[in-house]
């Protein structure tokens, strides 16, 4: 995969470059800030851009850079790496785009397997969300959603948590050691119990429906 990256911390930038190369990816651009990266990518194709959130242009250069890249190259995947996993930033990231986009903690992409899995999923158009954050969203949903989640079984909560990471049915099945068919059934139950509907079976739309649900106030 052709990867471009922008990160203002030299130590982390170097480490990530080395790990990307070790994973067999080509680093086509490497910058200490967002403006520099955008300039670098003129005439250079990248499959995914990896961006630090808190970098120049300050204060959150990763977000403004992502907006520019999405406008210039709509098919380029975007992976945000940050020291903090905050739902505030997740929502801002999903405002930039809801496909081929990801948000992970810096120290959590520290293996060739995880890094490649994350990049592959983004390249395939999926949403990838830091499991630490997905878990927090499911365990501590906003306000009255807490009671609504109370009607789910333990197993359904497990499925919801992995689903909130942006995993596909096969991905959820593999992680929970159940069949994809069982996952489908659990998901239908979850959507039914929470009163959620999705007109589409597209996986990233479904993830979005779940995340929006967890972060919204219950009107009733």
């Amino acid at each position, binding site marked *: 995969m052709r990867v471009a990256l922008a990160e203002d911390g030299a130590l982390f930038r170097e480490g990530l470059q080395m790990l990307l190369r070790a994973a067999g990816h080509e680093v086509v651009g490497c910058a200490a800030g967002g403006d520099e990266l955008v300039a670098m990518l003129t005439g250079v194709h990248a499959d995914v851009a990896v961006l630090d959130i808190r970098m120049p242009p300050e204060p959150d250069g990763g977000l403004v850079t992502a907006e520019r890249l999405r406008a210039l190259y709509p098919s380029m995947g975007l992976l945000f790496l940050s020291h903090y996993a905050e*739902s*505030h930033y997740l929502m801002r990231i999903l405002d930039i785009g809801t496909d081929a986009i990801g948000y992970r903690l810096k120290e959590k992409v*520290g293996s060739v397997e995880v890094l490649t899995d994350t990049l592959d999923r983004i390249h395939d158009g999926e949403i990838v969300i830091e499991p630490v954050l997905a878990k927090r969203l499911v365990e501590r949903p906003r306000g009255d959603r807490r009671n609504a989640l109370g009607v789910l079984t333990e197993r359904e909560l497990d499925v919801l948590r992995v689903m909130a990471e942006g995993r596909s049915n096969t991905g959820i099945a593999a992680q929970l050691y159940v069949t994809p068919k069982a996952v489908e059934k659990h998901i239908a139950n979850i959507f039914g119990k929470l009163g959620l509907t999705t007109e589409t079976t597209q996986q990233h739309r479904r993830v979005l429906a779940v995340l929006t649900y967890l972060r919204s106030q219950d009107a009733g």
Partner: protein
Amino acid sequence: MTVDPACRDGDAVPPPGPGRVTGWSQWSQRRGLERRLHDGAALRVSALALRLGLVRCRLPEDDVELHAAVDGMQDELHAVLQELRGIAAALYPPLLDEAGLGPALREEADRRGVGVTLDVPDNRFGATAEGAAYFAVAASLAARPAGRITVAAHRDGADLLLRVHGVPRAHAAHFREGAEPLGGSVGVGGGDPVTITARFPCG
């Protein structure tokens, strides 16, 4: 209080908090410490996690024990970073620094599972007023008062004017601790729960 040059350079960092550092300087100092953690120790540890990942991919594939050992070390580094995140949040929440009072209070209320109605504008009030106001409300949220709390903020002249409705009368102390060292003031109205009006000078 002025910043002790020794603190800037490294070794002895005085714990900020009531009794040690008060008034205007404490909030910008706290924010400085959070930024230092983010740009220093946290970044080094994250980079170290990546370097361990590099080592891991050079290990012989069949050495299960070594692979597990490296995984264990990476998990430990994540735990170290989570502790640093906890310290950063207690010093000066990064979201308060970057996004302001509204988003920071929203995140804290969600974390505590307290129902809060926020009416806080996007405009900024400066590190001192925002820090003092944030920690006063956060102390109230930490007590998990029953019922819904309403927090409204706006700029009134040179002050950040905060109105908090639905907290016990005793919570006024949190707001006095935050506002008075800055030369601000606190008023309490209504029965119990009360409405607290606190003024934090923006400087």
